[in-house]
């Protein structure tokens, strides 16, 4: 549930708002509806990982990965035919880490401040 909520809310919000909106979204949703901290982290991580990877592919595939290959060279990734794919995965992991950490913090808040009755 948390996974789907973070993914969908971020998808909509990111069309209008800067990328860091994923931090408050993941935090708030996990604080409201998160389970364990570990689960929340992985929910947040995988939601944004999947969202960012899919969006990156959506942008890059019609571009025949032209730009991704150039940016991979700029970032000095080792030269290979799959540079664009590695860059896509880096993108997903980076976004995932931010959202995962924020969700973890949300879950910790829930447990620490709101979860006394459990």
């Amino acid at each position, binding site marked *: 549930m948390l996974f789907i909520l973070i993914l969908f809310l971020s998808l909509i919000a*990111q*069309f209008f708002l*800067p*990328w*860091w909106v994923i*931090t408050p979204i993941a*935090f708030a949703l996990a604080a409201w509806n998160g389970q364990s*901290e570990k689960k929340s982290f992985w929910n947040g991580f995988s939601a944004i990982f999947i969202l*960012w990877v899919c*969006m*990156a592919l*959506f*942008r*890059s595939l*019609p*571009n*025949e*990965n*032209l*730009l*991704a*290959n*150039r*940016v*991979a*060279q*700029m970032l*000095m990734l080792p030269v290979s035919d799959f540079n664009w794919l590695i*860059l896509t995965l*880096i*993108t997903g992991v*980076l*976004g995932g*880490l*931010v959202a995962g*950490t*924020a969700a*973890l*913090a949300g879950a*910790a*808040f829930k*447990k*620490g*401040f709101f979860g006394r009755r459990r």
Partner: protein
Amino acid sequence: MRALKPIFTLFLALSLTFALNHKWGSIPPLAKFLDPFQGFWKNAESSDTSPELNLNLAGLQGEVSVQFDNQRIPHIFASNNHDLYFVQGFVTARDRLWQMDFQTRFAAGRLSEVIGPKALDIDRFQRRMGMTFGAENMMKTMMADPEIAAMMSAYAEGINAYIQSLKPGDYPIEFKILDYEPENWTPLNSALLLKMMSATLASGSDEFYMSNILKKYGADVMKDLFPDYPYREEPIIPVGTAWNFKPIPSPNAPADANIGTNASIRTKQKEEGIGSNNWAVSGKKTVSGYPILANDPHLDLTLPAIWYQIQLINQEQNVYGVSIPGAPGVIIGFNQKVAWGVTNVGSDVLDWYQVQFKDPSHQSYWYNNQWKATKQRIETIQVRGGEAITDTVYYTHHGPVVYLQDQKPGNFAKAKNIPEGYALRWIAHEGSNDVRTFYLLNKANNYDDYRKALTYYSAPAQNFLFATVDNDIAITPNGYFPLKWKGQGKFLLDGANPANEWQGRIPADQNPTVKNPARGFVSSANQFSADPSYPYYLHWEFSGYERGKRINDRLSKMNQITVDSVRNLQNDNYSIFAENVLSAFVSGVNTAKLTNEERTAFNVVSKWNKFYDAKEIGASIFEIWQKLLTKQIWEDEFGDANTPMRYPSRDRTVQLILSESQSKWFDNIKTPQKEGLNDVLLTSYKLTIDSLTKKYGPMSDKWQWGHVKHSNVPHLAKIAGFGSKTLFNGGSKTSVNALSESNGPSWRMIVALGKEPKAYGVFPGGQSGNPGSFYYDDMLDIWAEGRLNELLYLRSNDQPSERIISTWKFTKK
């Protein structure tokens, strides 16, 4: 204690978010940059283009339609000048916004604002050279001309309309990498870019070397090795052309013209990097009976491409050609009736005047036997991530004192040719209305229109080539040429003596020019504008004559000329320089002293056909050999680290080799024995083979000229991955196809005039400045292969063409 963990994890999440949204050094804000919604992925353009777009914009006066062809070149149809230049600004910004922004910041000395303290030296340099001072003077002149003022403003409005339509996610990728935002455009930005052309093409100076050489070797050696007219030359205005004007008197040189120099000055040798060509042949020599005009201006090549192709159509004009991203109108192009092109004129329009200040406050300086007050210009440089820096520049009536004593940054290459304590007198500081020249050429109908247009042009001086459908061809080395005494500015000048100043200008209508010469063609390749019969002094040295001679040799022999034969000449790799010296080189080498490897290579270079084609190994050997030979001959006398000097010209070196083989200059004064020409030929040959072998192994295909030369087109900000691949291409500085490592033909154009003009062109890049676009470098391979695209010249808005891929309709809001 339960609260500790939530607070700690929240802190972690916020820190991570902040850190990835922040630019660290030269690393872009990573998550912001990689965000697939608004980050760089958004710049990845799809290969599909939407065929139609309607735009509703405030600021337009009527309807405008833009047809984009299959190279994404815009063809703009407007009903008035305002809308035409407005939409030119809009579409140029759509494709080149970052390039325009970055080049303007570079020109104005404002890079530190966006890239921080590491740009401070270059910013200070640009400001101390007076770039903004010159652009402001230009603005005053342009804005006093109502038509040009309106043109500049409409263009700026169009750019701003585009900028305002953008959200951060839409910014060009370089803004995202460097993490800054575009700012509104002003006509001053356009003026800065135009003045940058002078900085690129008319800012060379050898005065310090020359003064040092004069001091060390005296006037006789100076006259012998650095003569005021070359041994071999084919001036642009053919020898024997009559000067149909009564010249005004040139000033006389003062008795004590030449002053001593400060030996601590360190300079870099002026590189002979510019290799532009243009020519036009009369209808008498063509198959069609109408003139054909060709032009290839050479510059330091970059991506995004230097030029932007465009067609501009309204009631007043239908012009096609290349524009400078950031300036309205067409710079090189053609219309229904005429075509024109430009190459650089290497006239001397930059001089250095020694300034004697009264005291360390620099408030006054000595001039004409009295103290005169300086003006101060306070430059404030905003620095990203630091405090603003102010810099005071002192201006004499000559111009800015670029560096006061001990003010020059020690380790800054660009400033190395600037003497400390000297004021800069430079044509780029003058108010000028160069835009009017192009404005008039864009709508020119005939030769008289051309002559009129040229009178408005100031700098950088260009060889304006022109042809009309009425079968007139002409060329004019044109610009503001200061009236000087012979040799004025060959050396550093004393700024206190009024006789050393520029004495007005050569009257514009007395600039060298020729119309319809008997030989049936006109041409230029940066060589001397005219022979010594021209009554005024322009400079003592221009680029070598070799390309000009090759063009003239070929054109003299060519008849029944077609676009294709002209295209072959543009791509000609033959070297007149090699023709002049190769046999002397080869016959001077004692082959008995060569090793087997050296002899094998010697056979290759001996049989070389003198074409710098990509596959020629002989070209590689010869090129390195002549370089090392030149060094062998001159370095011992002119390579003093304490007194920086330069070598005599290639022309003088060739003369020495061919007709003064007993010259003392061949001797290496640093060795006890006495060397002659054959000794230096042998030594430099052996060194050549040694260096090629060290770098590429024993002789093989790796020695081919295309590999050794390593041509490529780098990104404007040298961002890795955004430049071109390495190209396997021929050409050399002394060939018509003067492509070196990354200096070469920035635009190749051929126009065949006729009832309907037919034109061809290509540049090394593409229309789009976006590295994520298929139109970023789609012309590069065509250019590299020496082919041309047929240019789509539309006559009317509803003319059907299968090359049109999309149409934009602009309406006023």
